[in-house]
C-alpha cells in the first residue's frame, strides 16, 4: 500500500517536472515545434449551403369554404454547413429554421442532420451522428428543391426517419454497373404508449437517448445497372428487435421496415424525362401483446400494426429547346397512396393522392412550383389543394 502510494506520487512529480522542463525549453528554443496532427495550411474547406423557401396553399374540402394559408410558416430556412476537415474527415450538418415574421411569430430551430464521415478506403466511409438513413430515394434526397411535384407524397415519411448511430457506406464500380450500399446501427424507433391510446403503436424516430438496450440495424443496397447512371434501383430495410421502454410490458415489440425505389432520367432530345417511384412498408410486430395487457385490454382494440405507402411520378422538360422560357419549364404528374391500420385509434381508410405540378426553374437550384393536389378517401369528402412554392438553394 505504501509502495503503491509512493509510486503514484513519484509518477505525478515526474510528469510535473517534464511539463516544466518543456515550458522552459519552449521559451528558450527559437525554432517552432510542429503541432501534432496539424494539417497543412489550407486543408480545411468549408461551404455554407442552404435553402430558403416560402409556400402558400389554398385548401378546399367539398361542402366547406376554402382556406388560404402560408402553410405552417410563411418562410422556411435550412442551413447546411459542410466542412472538409482534411482528406479523410468531413462534417455535414443541416439545421432547419422555421420563422414567422408576422406579429407575435417566433422561430423554431431543429437539427435535421449532424454527421461526421471518416474515409476508411475509397469505397468505404464510416460515419456517426444524427442522420437520415437511406430508406428509399425520397427522404433526404428528393424532398427539398429536388421535389419536382412541390408537395410531399402522402405515402412517404411513414418509415425510417432520422436516427442517431454509426454506420458505413460507399459506392463502387462493378463492371458497367455501379453498386451503392449503406449499413448502420442506430438507437431505433421508440414505441408510443399513452393512457389515451391516441398514438398507441406508432413509432417515434430521432431519439438521442435510447429507451432500451437493443439497437436497430439497417441498410440499403442500390444498383445503377446502366453505364450512364441513368437508372437507379434500390432496396432498404431496418429491423428493431425491441421498441418499447426497457422493463415495460411492451419492450419486446419489434418493428421491421422496408423500402424499394426507382429513379430514372433520360434525355430523348429535346425532351428530358424523369420517372421516380418508391414503396415503403413498416410492420410493428407482437402487437397483440399490447392490447392484452391488464392496463389496456378493455380500452384499446387489437389491430394489425402495418403501415404502407407509395408514390409514382414522371416529369417532362423541354431541356433541349432554344427558347429559354420553354427549356426552363417542367411538367410533372404523380399518384400515391397511404395505408394506415384501420382499426387503430390513429388509423384511417386508405388515402389517395393525385398531383399535377408545373415548375419554372430560374436556375438549376431555384424553382417556382405551382401544384394541384387532389386527395380522396372512402367515406370522406374530396379535398383539393393548390400550392405555390418558391425555393432558393444557395
Amino acid at each position, binding site marked *: 500500500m505504501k509502495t503503491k502510494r509512493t509510486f503514484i506520487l513519484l509518477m505525478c512529480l515526474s510528469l510535473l517536472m517534464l511539463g516544466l522542463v518543456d515550458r522552459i525549453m519552449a521559451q528558450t528554443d527559437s525554432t517552432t515545434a510542429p503541432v501534432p496532427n496539424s494539417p497543412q495550411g489550407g486543408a480545411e474547406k468549408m461551404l455554407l449551403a442552404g435553402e430558403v423557401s416560402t409556400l402558400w396553399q389554398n385548401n378546399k374540402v367539398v361542402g366547406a369554404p376554402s382556406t388560404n394559408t402560408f402553410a405552417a410558416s410563411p418562410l422556411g430556412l435550412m442551413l447546411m454547413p459542410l466542412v472538409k476537415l482534411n482528406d479523410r474527415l468531413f462534417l455535414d450538418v443541416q439545421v432547419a429554421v422555421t420563422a414567422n415574421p408576422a406579429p407575435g411569430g417566433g422561430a423554431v430551430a431543429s437539427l435535421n442532420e449532424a454527421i461526421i464521415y471518416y474515409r476508411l478506403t475509397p469505397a468505404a466511409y464510416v460515419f456517426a451522428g444524427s442522420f437520415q438513413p437511406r430508406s428509399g430515394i425520397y427522404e433526404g*434526397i428528393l424532398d427539398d428543391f429536388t421535389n419536382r411535384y412541390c408537395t410531399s407524397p402522402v405515402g412517404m415519411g411513414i418509415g425510417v426517419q432520422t436516427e442517431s448511430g454509426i454506420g458505413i457506406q460507399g459506392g463502387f464500380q462493378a*463492371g458497367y454497373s455501379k453498386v451503392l450500399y449503406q449499413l448502420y446501427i442506430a438507437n431505433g424507433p421508440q414505441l408510443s404508449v399513452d393512457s389515451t391510446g391516441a398514438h398507441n403503436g406508432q413509432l417515434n424516430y430521432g431519439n438521442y437517448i435510447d429507451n432500451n438496450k437493443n439497437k436497430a440495424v439497417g441498410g440499403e443496397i442500390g444498383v445503377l445497372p446502366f453505364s450512364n447512371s*441513368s437508372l437507379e434501383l434500390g432496396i432498404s430495410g431496418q429491423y428493431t428487435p425491441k421498441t418499447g421502454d426497457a422493463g415495460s410490458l411492451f419492450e419486446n415489440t419489434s418493428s421491421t421496415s422496408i423500402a424499394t425505389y426507382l429513379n430514372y432520367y433520360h434525355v430523348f432530345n429535346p425532351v428530358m424525362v424523369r420517372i421516380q417511384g418508391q414503396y415503403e412498408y413498416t410492420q410493428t410486430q407482437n402487437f397483440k401483446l399490447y392490447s392484452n395487457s391488464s392496463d389496456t385490454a378493455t380500452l384499446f382494440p387489437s389491430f394489425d400494426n402495418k403501415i404502407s405507402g407509395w408514390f409514382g411520378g414522371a416529369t417532362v422538360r423541354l431541356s433541349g429547346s432554344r427558347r429559354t422560357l420553354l427549356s426552363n419549364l417542367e411538367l410533372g404528374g404523380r399518384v400515391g397512396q397511404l395505408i394506415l391500420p384501420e382499426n387503430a385509434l390513429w388509423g384511417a381508410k386508405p388515402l389517395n393522392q393525385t398531383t399535377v405540378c408545373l415548375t419554372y426553374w430560374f436556375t438549376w437550384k431555384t424553382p417556382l412550383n405551382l401544384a394541384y393536389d387532389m386527395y380522396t378517401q372512402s367515406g370522406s369528402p374530396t379535398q383539393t389543394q393548390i400550392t405555390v412554392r418558391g425555393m432558393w438553394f444557395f
Partner: protein
Amino acid sequence: MKSKIKIKTTVAILAIGIASAAIINGCKVPEEIANKSGAQLWGENCNRCHNVVDPKTFGDDQWDAATEHMRQKALLTDREVSKIRDFLKTANK
C-alpha cells in the same frame, strides 16, 4: 428423390458459378468507363436527382466541400468524385 437432389445441387453450383463469374468480372472497370471525362461524369451523375450544376456556382474550396457532400448523398465512386471535382474546379474560372 436422388435425381431431385442432383438437379438442385447442379442448379446451386451453376448459380454460384455464374454469380462468382459476374463478381470477378465486375471487379475490372471497363476501359470506356475508366476513360470517361469529368465533364461526362458531371453530366451523367449530377442530373440524377437535381438539375445539372453550373460549375461557376462555387469557388475551388467550396467545390471541395460540395463534392464531398455529394459523394455521401449520391454514394458516388471515388473516381467519379475526383474527376467531377477536377472538372468543376477547371470550369469555374
